[in-house]
């Protein structure tokens, strides 16, 4: 593999039902209290399930994305000149916006994808290239992997990856119609008795920089992205391969790029959505990569607390993973009822677990058999 530029994370920001900002996200996932409440943002009359993890008083997706990018850039210490050279990779759902327009004169929901990317870049002063990822639940993690590749190749010095999903009526209705939502109102990843997923807000931005570019301006470093992988199942339009072959190849690719053996990884933020077959497929993938040691690797899916943020989930969970590594505490996999023999893993239940590990993985999977793995390390 060619020698490549090291990649640093120098600024993050996240909005979720746990609150605004990285501190609120970390506190929320360590507290481990699920954020699911009855949906008040829109009418759920006639739906099987009527709860989600939503933050009250959110703005439009365009406004919240702008706020997230601005906060992440400020956290990274990017001045106007540094922003002007930065690329923007946006991960979000395509199609017509379905959230109501804000209640103010002239208010609207902002432009649709793909014009939203240019709108966001202009508002935030980002003058580099833009890309829009609509790869469902691996949109954001694919954007990070691509940013890592382009920075590693020397094409770009700085990429802001932004991702957004605010729980809205159309996707909610679709997930409800597909019987994907947990009828018991709880997300129980890898647990016996799990019934499905629940949706949650996620608007996130992360500043990624080439190590030399970050060092040249004395930027803070929260973590380094040391490995990444993307692979497909070639199995089904919507269901994961129960053997976990694609996800296992994505994890193996991330480890190979990082130059690390599996045993170097001390935490795994799982994709696990609380869905019976997909959690079992992920466990099978981990068994393929880690062998018997899969049962000794601390694992949690924080979707049990903040919900599934769809196109933004990969970035929200990347930030969780980075913050957990930096804080030395592994977040809780809430909703646990008991072990499932199809998921023989060391799931972090009850309370956060202290760790001194330097390396963690965060996994995501999506319709189409799309899988990603991102490996982050302490600076």
């Amino acid at each position, binding site marked *: 593999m060619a020698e490549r530029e090291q990649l640093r994370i120098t600024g993050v920001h996240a909005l979720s039902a746990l609150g605004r900002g990285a501190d609120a996200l970390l506190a929320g996932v360590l507290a481990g209290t699920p954020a699911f409440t009855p949906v008040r943002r829109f009418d759920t009359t006639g739906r099987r399930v009527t709860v989600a993890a939503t933050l009250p008083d959110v703005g439009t997706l365009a406004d919240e994305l702008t706020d997230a990018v601005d906060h992440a850039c400020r956290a990274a210490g990017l001045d106007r000149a540094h922003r002007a050279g930065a690329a923007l990779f946006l991960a979000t759902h395509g199609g017509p916006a379905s959230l109501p327009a804000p209640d103010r004169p002239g208010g609207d929901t902002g432009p649709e994808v793909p014009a939203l990317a240019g709108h966001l870049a202009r508002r935030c002063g980002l003058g580099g290239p833009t890309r829009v990822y*609509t*790869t*469902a639940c691996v949109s954001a993690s694919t954007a990070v992997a691509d940013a890592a590749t382009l920075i590693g190749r020397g094409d770009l010095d700085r990429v802001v990856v932004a991702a957004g999903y605010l729980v809205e009526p159309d996707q909610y209705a*679709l997930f409800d119609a597909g019987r*994907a939502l947990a009828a018991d109102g709880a997300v129980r990843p890898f647990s016996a008795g799990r019934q499905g997923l629940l949706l949650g807000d996620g608007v996130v931005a992360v500043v990624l920089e080439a190590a030399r570019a970050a060092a040249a301006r004395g930027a803070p470093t929260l973590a380094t992205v040391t490995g990444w992988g993307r692979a497909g199942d070639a199995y089904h339009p919507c269901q994961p391969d129960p053997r976990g*072959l694609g996800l296992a190849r994505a994890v193996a690719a991330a480890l190979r790029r990082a130059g690390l053996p599996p045993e170097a990884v001390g935490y795994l933020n799982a994709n696990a959505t609380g869905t019976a077959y997909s959690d079992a497929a992920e466990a099978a993938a981990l068994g393929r990569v880690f062998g018997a040691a899969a049962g000794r690797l601390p694992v949690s899916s924080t979707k049990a607390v903040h919900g599934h943020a769809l196109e933004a989930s990969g970035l929200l969970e990347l930030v969780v993973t980075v913050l957990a590594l930096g804080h030395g505490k592994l977040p809780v996999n809430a909703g646990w009822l008991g072990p499932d023999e199809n998921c023989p893993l060391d799931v972090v239940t009850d309370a956060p677990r202290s760790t001194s590990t330097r390396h963690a993985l965060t996994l995501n999977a*999506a319709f189409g058999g799309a899988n990603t793995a991102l490996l982050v390390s302490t600076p």
Partner: protein
Amino acid sequence: MLARARWPENGDGPPAPVPGFVHSGFAPLVVAVADRCLRRRYGDGPLPAGNRTAVLLVSASGDRASATHVRATVAAGGRVGPLFFFQSVPNSVAGHVAARWGLDGPVVCLSPTGDGWNEGAAEADLLLYDGDAAQVLLVLIEQAPDGTPGEATAVLLGEGTRQ
């Protein structure tokens, strides 16, 4: 470029329906152009495991017909059919093609902010350079504003990585 196809080509009518996909011409058009492209290279397929062929779907509009139908149904207080859940993201039809042909490289969907071909080719180059893909099936498709299918192009790019 290893193979190229368009839909429609001479004499083509509407593409055949795809089991599991309803209401919209988006998925049938993607499948028709992808199948035509891959048949020109591989006959009936599927490819052997480990081919690392990515499916890269580039569309600014996405499946506008389905999204518009869902939007109207929900806004009117109705219930959408469960099949619309399964086709709610472009990944689904990309995964259909991947499963049919055994394409086990990455699945990526982009909504281009500029020229779709240039953005698709740049993403394909990135995936090949990085090594997660040894080949890339790039499909470009747009629907008309009224949701009716327009044209689609598929190209197979690769082969082998550059590192």
